[in-house]
């Protein structure tokens, strides 16, 4: 079985309060030197059978219509090695 990963992140212009909250907490926990944090989602899909271009195209469609809301989010599809 192969794994295809879809990473979904808010578009850069959209406020990400979750990332900000993490970012703000870091200095308090003693972690310096992080300029910014953004938080997004990671989907791990276990695909039956080989991952060929057709499968990837389908996953991309799935991400576009379902896993991400492209009004506010960007996504990347990749095959996990």
């Amino acid at each position, binding site marked *: 079985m192969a794994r295809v990963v879809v990473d979904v992140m808010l578009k850069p212009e959209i*406020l990400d*309060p*979750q990332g900000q*909250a993490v970012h703000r907490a870091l200095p308090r926990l003693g972690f310096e030197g992080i300029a910014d944090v953004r938080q997004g989602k990671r989907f791990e899909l276990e695909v039956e059978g080989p991952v060929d271009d057709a499968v990837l195209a389908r996953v991309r469609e799935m991400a576009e219509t*379902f*896993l991400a*809301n492209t*009004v*506010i989010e960007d996504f990347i599809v990749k095959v996990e090695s």
Partner: protein
Amino acid sequence: MTARVGVVTFPGTLDDRDTQRAIRVAGAEPVPLWHRDKDLHQVDAVVLPGGFSYGDYLRAGAISRFSPVMESIIAGAKDGLPVLGICNGFQVLTESHLLPGAMLRNNHLHFICRDQKLRVENADTAWTADYAAGQEISIPLKNIDGRYVADERTLDELEAEGRVVFRYLDVNPNGSLRDIAGISNAAGNVVGLMPHPEHAVEPLIGTGGTDGLGFFTSILKKLVNA
């Protein structure tokens, strides 16, 4: 003659029974609609009630949008069927692209439950005719994904066309852009908002006010007079 108003139940819908009660209190007839059933049973209008359909997993409203009943509602809405989305229902409407923009996690990251003051900006929609433009009302608000966002152009367009139907007053409870609490489509038959009018239809219950009743009497009048 009375009006038949459908109330959709998705798996995880919570406020369906409350919404049915509100419709009854207003004098109309509530008709339960089931997510798997495409048939709208000749209703004259539809409410998508609040809750956590499909647990709000993935994104609020994202999974419900693909249900069979939504296919019919999307088609109906385009033909002028009055549709009101409350809270989770509003989220379903944006995910379905019946309304523009999207709903995101509140800027303070918490669920918030409070009595919320709103201004009715547009009293010409199917669901707000019983209010006066500019009227201030108080109804409960309760959500964690209530922050309305859209790009600047869309926001300007909404403002210009009078499609910002409700605005938060006093406090913006979630970081919604331009204090937007609810919007409509261009035709005015589809309205979505985050606060819950169905929880403000009886004195004593909830916050004890009845400011939400106007949503349900508005649609009743419109349908009966039609």
